[in-house]
């Protein structure tokens, strides 16, 4: 069993497709993940299931891999000490989760923006370009930079989990570039394709961070590190052009008003 615990989850699922279904039953969504290079044991650790649930999950996986054999499954060791499932973030993590809210408000509006979008009109092109500016200024420079330059440095950046998150950031930048190029060419199809792909990417990315990555990080950070992170995030906030952030906030608010979209709280 040890060899499968140390195998990439995608490889395990490819060999034993039922394992993917079992993981899904426990709300561990590895099947649709495009990367799937996290080790099975890390996947189990990071989801922080209560002991009984984890034992049940591992027993079912073992039965799938070794049908008819009684296998003793080693308990997956955790580095952190807090096993609570309640999502109560530390102050620096709460800050990042709060920043996600504005990003989620923008990506929720994308289908309506595209529905009404006319690639030939200056107004339509302007709206999409402002959306790209929001992605670059707020989601990427302001928010992702806090993760890449500060938060991720407290962990092993070569871990599969962080590589997956960083890969999402790179893909997001690629979509932003492709959208602005498509606007220049008045290529409606290109705009729709990349804006929708960005929406899908960020929706999943934020969900992974809010529900899995940040709680796992919180369990593994010391009190001293939490204090340092909080101070460093505040330094970034203070060094950031406040007017630029306000422009991003009012952009989302205006698009919401325009499309009469209910604000996501």
């Amino acid at each position, binding site marked *: 069993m040890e060899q499968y615990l140390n195998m990439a989850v995608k490889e395990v699922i490819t060999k034993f497709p039922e394992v993917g279904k079992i993981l899904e039953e426990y709300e561990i969504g590895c099947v649709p993940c495009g990367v799937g290079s996290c080790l099975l044991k890390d996947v189990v650790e990071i989801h922080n299931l209560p002991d009984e649930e984890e034992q049940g999950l591992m027993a079912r996986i073992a039965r799938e891999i070794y049908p008819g054999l009684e296998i003793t499954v080693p308990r997956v060791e955790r580095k952190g000490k807090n096993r609570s499932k309640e999502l109560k973030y530390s102050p620096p993590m709460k800050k990042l989760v709060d920043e996600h809210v504005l990003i989620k408000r923008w990506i929720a509006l994308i289908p309506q923006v595209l529905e009404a979008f006319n690639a030939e009109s200056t107004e339509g092109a302007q709206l999409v370009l402002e959306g790209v500016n929001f992605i670059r200024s707020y989601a990427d420079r302001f928010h992702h930079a806090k993760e890449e330059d500060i938060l991720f440095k407290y962990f092993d950046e070569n871990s599969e989990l962080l590589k997956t998150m960083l890969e999402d950031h790179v893909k997001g930048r690629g979509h932003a570039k492709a959208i602005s190029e498509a606007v220049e060419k008045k290529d409606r199809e290109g705009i729709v394709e990349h804006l929708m792909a960005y929406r899908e990417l960020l929706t999943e990315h934020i969900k992974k961070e809010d529900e899995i990555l940040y709680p796992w990080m919180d369990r593994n950070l010391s*009190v001293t590190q939490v*204090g340092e992170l*909080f101070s460093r995030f505040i330094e970034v906030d203070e060094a950031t052009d406040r007017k630029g952030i306000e422009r991003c906030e009012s952009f989302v608010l205006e698009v919401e008003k325009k499309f009469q979209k209910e604000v996501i709280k």
Partner: protein
Amino acid sequence: MNEFAGCPGSRMVDFRKGETREEAPLGKVQSQLRQWPVQLHLVSPTAPYYQGADVLLTADCVGYALGSFHTDYLKGKSLAIACPKLDQGQEVYTGKIKSWFEDAKINTLTVLIMQVPCCMGLVDLAQQALAGSKRKVPVKAVVVSLQGEILSEKWV
């Protein structure tokens, strides 16, 4: 007094009945205290050992209930102790905690309290000080049971 009557903070409980404690490892436990004084009325919030520190504000009783107090909580931190039930002049406490945030620029504050309801007053004092402070700092509340178990650890 009936042992089930009265305030939970002063109700009599005898833990000797059915005692099945694990023996603590033999040998001398090193103290992790790195300052004096420790009582909140006596300390200066701007003392050098509070500057940029991770500070532990502990209800008096915690030090006796929590067996691993020195190794698990006090190690690496600067300390102050207080009793939110019996201490006089607690408005001074709010000012001192605020001064930790603003003047000593502490890194974090961990408030360690007992499970009895009156102990929550110490967390309230920290929250009041934080609400009135221009500088924000992560504050954690840790609740300890009468027999020294950690009941909860939460950022407030």
